[in-house]
């Protein structure tokens, strides 16, 4: 099976979908001549031409709305927004319009629109370029929100998103672009709305998405190797709809849960997961559900402060130890 990067998986999928369906159009800032800020669209302008790969002016509200309107007439735009911070310029078009058009007009119009954007932070991008807003969109009925953690899921979910007739917010992650994984050839999709148990375990369930799933996998391997702790990792993959059943089934097995999320803790993705666990698996819990999240500050520029503000492996190890305290595999 070919091993490719997350970036390659996205790039290949965009190319394959452009070739498959003449109504698929890529739109975004600097995606053509510049080949994308993070080179996800590299080579596609050359291959498909300016009708299919459209450089947009700096006008997120305008061109996201344009894409939604074109989608209403049967075009299938795949929009790249350079980072999720800039999606805020287009929130009216996404939340007040794209998400409501099918429902509000009694099913007479559909909006097959994908908005791809990296969320979270890397390096020292500081307060305005490091935020996580996937929860804002996951809050909104009428939207679908996915956040793949592996090249395989990136390919399968992007295919599913482009072929879906509803607006899909496709969350990417800068630190994941160079990660590698097995991606088979062939026209597979990953269904929107299903989580995935990325690693089976017996002692504790760690729930993550996107970069935090990768973090959870690394921590799980280390704890297994060094301390004999068996961690089950549930990768949400889809934030809306949320596959609560897979989370609950895992809790029934391990009786303990830690959520690791890229966003701020208050009102974040983890709050929804924790509430779901207490609603649907209360009797199976042997410890309080813990959340590992970003510290609640506008992310400071300073390297040491920036690193300390983001959720990391030591936080997750501490949380896992806390929920296992007093058990045979927990800390003494």
């Amino acid at each position, binding site marked *: 099976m070919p091993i490719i990067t997350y970036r390659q998986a996205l790039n290949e999928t965009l190319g394959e979908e452009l070739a498959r369906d003449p*109504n698929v*159009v890529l739109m975004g800032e600097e995606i053509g001549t510049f080949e994308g800020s993070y080179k996800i669209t590299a080579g596609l302008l050359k291959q498909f031409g300016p*009708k299919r790969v459209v450089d947009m*002016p700096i*006008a997120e*509200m*305008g*061109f*996201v*709305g*344009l*894409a*939604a*309107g*074109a*989608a*209403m*007439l*049967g*075009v299938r735009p795949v929009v790249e927004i350079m980072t999720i911070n800039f999606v805020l310029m287009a929130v*009216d*078009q996404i939340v*007040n*319009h794209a998400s409501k*058009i*099918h*429902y*509000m*007009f*009694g*099913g*007479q*119009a*559909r*909006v*097959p629109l994908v908005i791809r954007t990296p969320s979270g932070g890397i390096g020292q991008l500081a307060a305005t370029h490091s935020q996580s807003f996937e929860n804002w969109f996951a809050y909104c*009925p*009428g939207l*679908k929100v996915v956040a793949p953690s592996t090249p395989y899921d990136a390919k399968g979910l992007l295919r599913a998103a482009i072929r*879906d*007739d*509803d607006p899909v917010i496709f969350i990417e992650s800068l630190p994941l672009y160079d990660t590698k994984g097995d991606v088979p050839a062939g026209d597979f999709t990953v*269904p*929107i*709305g*299903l989580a995935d148990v990325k690693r089976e375990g017996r002692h504790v369930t760690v729930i993550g998405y996107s970069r935090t799933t990768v973090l959870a996998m690394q921590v799980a391997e280390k704890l297994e190797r060094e301390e004999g702790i068996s961690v089950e990792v549930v990768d949400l993959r*889809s934030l809306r*709809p*949320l*596959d*609560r*059943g897979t989370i609950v089934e895992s809790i029934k097995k391990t009786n303990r849960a830690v959520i690791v999320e890229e966003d701020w803790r208050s009102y974040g993705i983890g709050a929804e997961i924790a509430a*779901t666990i207490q*609603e*649907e698996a209360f009797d199976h819990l042997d410890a309080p559900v813990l959340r590992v999240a970003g510290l609640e500050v506008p992310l400071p520029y300073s390297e040491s402060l920036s690193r300390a503000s983001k959720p990391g492996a030591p936080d997750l190890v501490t949380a896992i130890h806390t929920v296992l305290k007093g058990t045979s595999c927990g800390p003494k």
Partner: protein
Amino acid sequence: MAKVTRDQKAAVAPTGLPPDLAREDAGTVRHYYRQMLLLRRFEERASEMYTKAKIGGYCHLNLGEEATIVGLMAALRPDDYIYTNYREHGYIIARGVPAPKVMAELFGRETGVSGGRGGSMHLFDAATHFMGGYGIVGGQVPLAVGAAYALKYQERPGVVLCQVGDGTTNIGPWYESLNLAKLFQLPIIFFIVNNGYGMGTSVEQGSSEPDLWKKGASFRIHGERVDGTDVLAVRDVTRRLRERAEREHEPAIMDVTSFRFRGHSVIDPDRYRDADATKRSRGEQDPLLHLAARMRESGLADDAYFTETLAQVEREVQDAIDFADASAPPKLADLYQYMFATEVPNTLSAAEREMFEARLAGQER
């Protein structure tokens, strides 16, 4: 400070018979009049239904804009697509959707144009390409530009008509949309219904350039002002700019002046306008009175015609009300019916389903 005034009166047609009415087909002019009267009576009765609590939410009326709407629709073709703001009852009716389906939507019934899910501000009809009333100021503008983008992309005939209010020309998406429309050379007309007020704020108070047709200048978009109380003027300018938009992919702005007869919405007491002046303007700028006078002068209609037409329209609007009143509201069981166009697993959580089913059971008890 220099007082900014808008050059509105200059574009208003002189009183008396314009030379072009005589050239019109009598049946066509009568059809316009009848349509305008239908919109007038539909809105007056809608207002009455609102006070009787048959209509809820917000309800914005087209009173005073009848010539603007009927003239516009006379110029559009079946291939064209229409996006409007939330003051759109008249537009969808003049586009050809039966009045009963529109009234039923205002009543929130399943038989309404949006299945009772949209209401007054969110009317939609796929068959006639009426692509929605939109409740958020400026929201429809980028969408309309996108529809024009799709027409060009798919090499289809037709243009997009994007109706906005005068206040919308001050919001960001308006400017981003003008830029995109010209940048991509799209077949679209931006149709400003300039009734002088965005809610309670006058055009002069809200816009540093009160001549709204000039607002495309820095985007190299042609604009012109039209007397929105003259049905033929609106039709003819729309026709000309529509042809140009379709053939040459040149966007255009129409600044269509009229007078809003009442407050912003049914519940607005209109205290910010001088009551006497409003009353006077209603008389002076009533498009129906204008057209009726011209029809009499040119011998196109007499008292018997006007009496008979009014009776027909009254019946039609009453039928619309009766149809709406007799129609059932959407079923609670269908609450999630239009959530997604493509079904996916786990759309409803267990807790959501439980709460929904409890409410469903409660309603059935």
